[in-house]
């Protein structure tokens, strides 16, 4: 199976990925972890704002908007078999 890891910030609108890693050194990381952005969690990029940033994501049944500065802390993996 081909596995591709990329930054959450680059996850295309409408696609789902699985969180692989999070930059533990960033001060925001702890808050993201606490909100459920832990490795193995599926996350879907719902929509980018009209001006390109931020982006809404769906994770653990709720929606949250992240700026690129936050979403680029997270690495996701897109499995070809996940829609």
């Amino acid at each position: 199976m081909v596995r591709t890891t990329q930054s959450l910030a680059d996850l295309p609108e409408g696609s789902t990925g699985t969180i692989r890693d999070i930059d533990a050194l960033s001060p925001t990381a702890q808050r993201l972890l606490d909100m459920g952005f832990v490795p193995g969690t599926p996350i879907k990029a719902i929509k980018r704002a009209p001006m390109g940033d931020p982006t809404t994501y769906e994770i653990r049944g709720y929606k949250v908007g992240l700026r690129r500065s936050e979403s680029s802390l997270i690495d996701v993996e897109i499995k070809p078999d996940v829609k």
Partner: protein
Amino acid sequence: MSNKQPHEGGHCRKVFLVGNPNSGKTSLFNAITGERHRVGNWPGVTVQKIEGITITDSGRLIINDLPGTYSLTPATPEEEVVLKSLDEAANGLIINVVDIANFERNLFLTTQLVELGVKPVVSLNCYDSFTRAGGTIDLQKFSSLTGTSAFPTVARTAEGVTSLVEHLARPESLKVECYSNLLALPEIWQKSAEEVLAFQQLKWSTATPLQKYNGLRELISLKPLEADPQILEIRRRLAAQLSIGREKPLKVIDLACELASDRYRRIEKLISLCAVIPGKNIPPWQEKLDALLTHRFLGLPFFALMMAWIFWTTFSIGEIPMGWMESLVELAGNFIRDNLQAGMLRELLADGIISGVGGVLVFIPNILILFFWIAILEDSGYMSRAAFIMDRMMNSIGLHGRAFIPMIMGLGCNVPAVLATRIIDNRFQRLLTMLLIPLVTCAARLPVLVLLCGTFFPENPSTWMFSLFFVNLLVLIFLGHTTSILFKTADNSPFLLEMPPYRLPTPTSVLHMLQEKAMHFIEKAGTVILAGAIVIWVLSVFPREVPLSFDFAAELAAIKSRPVTSQTGEEIASLTRKRDIEQMEGRYMARIGKLMHPVMAPLGFSWRETVSLIPGFLAKESVVSTLTVLYIPYDEDLGKAMHKTGMTPLTAFVFMLFTLLYIPCIATLGVVWRESGSTKFTALSLLVYFSIAYIVSFAALKIGELLQSSTGTAAEAVTIILAAIFAGWYLLRTLLNTFIGRQCKSCASCSSCPAKGNDCPGG
């Protein structure tokens, strides 16, 4: 239950409400306490503390509404309050409000509490939409698996609140037993935490929740270099133990991630054992509405329409009740003038106090209408969407998307705009917005511009007005940029914008908001504004007796004794004018103005302009009326008089620029002081405005002088052109970044940014 008389000798318990933002915590608080609550500050920090009381059969309950937070680990000063109150809360009672429609994430905080040995009463909120969507939960099982007592509630309709309160009032609910349950800390973790606590001669079993929290925090702290070697050793051992049986060994730095993952694993297990979560708890109509409201092309126009509607109702419809208020104030003033003897008391009452009170009351209609809409936007869930679509633009000047509404409202009046910064929950972001709002040109500053532009630039007043706005905007963007570059870190501005589901706002919550806003404004800011108005009034009428250079009464009598000629009327008028001017010059206000004049003289202002700036502090529109009075001896027409005394179009331009920037009016200052809760911040921002106004005006004067003088050297010309190009480029770059740019220049965590080097210019 809230109408019962207090029981004599009944116990009095402190109850603390904790929960995620948007979990319905405040609705639950209102449902429990009804109307009785008071607003104060948490000791040490300027975070609002809301306390309410409810009376039950067995005693009184003092309910504390703690700031909403996703986790005990604080990200903002507000959230630190939760952690600091933890021990006190553990000694009383904790209600953990859990939005069951958002179960997993809400249980994270519950898990943290349970790990630390706290036994919260869990209020499973939004229970109605959960069951409607097909969700079920075995409450008995949930309680026994978590060691908590759980109550289904619907805070918006107060459903289930009675049985929750009854439970709180029972004395036995205070007992905390030691449970071994699903959410408890795994043994490996607890042992390591125990080792950390041993350094401070503490034991896990006897330590307070806060001590336990700190022990655990030592294990996962994200700054590994700061820890002492012994703790590092414990961490290393913990990581090694946790690595057993894994394909990839765990690194010390991943411990924080591992603990969070472990908590979510426990939560997932708990939910799978006791509840059925509806697959899709967002109804399809909401999805459609959301797609429309945040649409790439339709989202912005829709938001603009909504803003226009709110602005129009706030300031145009608001004018009608404002007119009533004004006539009421006038009536009261006249009543006092008619019924009191002439004298100091009458003047103080009629001109000082009544008009001061009027100055406070005129804001109420605006505030009520604006907050009516804000409450509806906030409760319906649209506010988050608005912040979402505007964030890119606001971020370019260092602000949060939510700052757009306060900034735009500033165009009408800065006072409700500053109050509206309440919608920004991050304190740093709120202060930054408050700092920038006074630089938004409010409607009261327009008369000065209209008058002077019309007088000094009769050919094209609008062009010059536009250029003033342009400079103003440049200053605003510059200040926003600079402050955020200097002070903004990822610590003080994490951006996590939760999109709550759309809900129908309830009349009670809207009413609560309006009542609280109006009372808060009158009580807190109103007193400051009133005091300021009285001070300015005193300065403008005292000292009562000013030594005159001539005997006015005698000369008047002399004129009157002479036979009446065609010039008599004129003579009397000019004499009166002369006396008025001398009296005015003798008042404290003019004396202060003259004292300040040397400071302002480099800007080309005469003492008259300097004096007019003082009442301008009370309200910017008074600048014009004061100038009119001061210039009367030269000519009846203000414009001509100013020309006569040597004011040039350039000084007029500089004066307008200074008036726009120099200082917010006293009402704005009052609300900034009260809302920021910080005298230091208010004083510092005053200093910032004044220095910016001074520097910008001075630069404008010098540039203008250079442009006018034909003797300007080539070097000077180049400097001016370069400055103009730089300013234009700066503005253009900001605008471009706003609309098309995708650089991560505002990235607060650039050091750890994975995209660094690709498209991050290192901002």
